[in-house]
């Protein structure tokens, strides 16, 4: 029993780590640096979470197309004008809709986007738990202990 449970936990952790570690590599599409390092860091972060509307699976930081360049310019100017990160996101959302945000807002329309992964995870854990329970029952019925793990 212990072994199977441990395996389940290990599998879950492995999936988790792979997901977290696969952070997209940064491309050197955008040569512009803002003079203020604090602004530059915010600029870098913001442009990575805004979608390039023409290419759709890239952020505006990673895309060489003209519109992405224009949107980066807008972000720089808004930041220089003292806007907060949220104000920049809202500026983009007002024009291009929720679709431009790689990290969508939590509203009624996008609720399933946020809840689905948690629900699927719970479903998976429940299924795993069921399998473990069944195997444990099997082992006890046969009169074996669980030291051998899988037979």
């Amino acid at each position: 029993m212990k072994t199977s449970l441990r395996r389940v936990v290990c599998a879950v952790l492995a999936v988790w780590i792979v997901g977290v570690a696969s952070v997209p590599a940064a491309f050197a599409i955008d040569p512009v640096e803002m003079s203020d390092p604090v602004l530059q860091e915010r600029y870098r972060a913001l442009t990575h979470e805004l979608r390039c509307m023409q290419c759709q699976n890239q952020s505006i930081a990673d895309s060489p197309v003209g519109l992405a360049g224009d949107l980066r310019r807008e972000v720089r100017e808004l930041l220089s004008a003292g806007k907060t990160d949220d104000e920049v996101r809202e500026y983009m959302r007002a024009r291009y809709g929720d679709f431009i945000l790689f990290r969508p807002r939590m509203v009624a329309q996008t609720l399933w986007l946020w809840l689905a992964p948690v629900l699927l995870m719970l479903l998976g854990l429940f299924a795993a738990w069921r399998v473990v329970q069944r195997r444990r029952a099997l082992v006890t019925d046969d009169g074996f202990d669980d030291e051998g793990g899988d037979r």
Partner: protein
Amino acid sequence: MKYLIPAGVFALLVVVLAIGIQRAPSKNVIPSALIGKPAPTWSLPVIASNQSPTPASFDSERLRGRWFVFNVWGTWCPECKVEHPMLLEMARQKKLPLIGLDWKDDDAAARRWLESLGDPYDVVVADRDGRTAIDFGVYGAPETFLIDDRGVVVYKHVGAMNPDVWQREFLARLPTAAPSDGTQGQP
């Protein structure tokens, strides 16, 4: 009995994927965030107009009080060339004023384009740095907006205009007392 759960999951997956495939053609078109909201205002240099002399600049305020079509294009855009005959047809019908936004383009190239292919626009203004297009949430030319007499965005079409869209999504949305009394040429 043993396969009930896997079969159920499979059936669910089939349903979800079937819905996804059915809706796929419309997925490329991202709905405009501006529908039902006031259209952005602008004041831009004029490339061409049917007024003489051609004014140096044109302000969107001058369109207030009438329905009009706002078409985003550029000479660098192949689909715009495909669309052009349809714009000429729309202009010929004189049902709505047609305003052109020449997006990140060369003024001289735009004038040559209009001379050689014909000019369907009442006014064409130049969005040289692309800011007005961003205000309109434009992500690819051509895009065509229908804007009402209060200056509210009623509809946006992405891609080349065609007779079906023109009839069903533009003309059909006009109030019955449509400004079909030859408003063309007024702005």
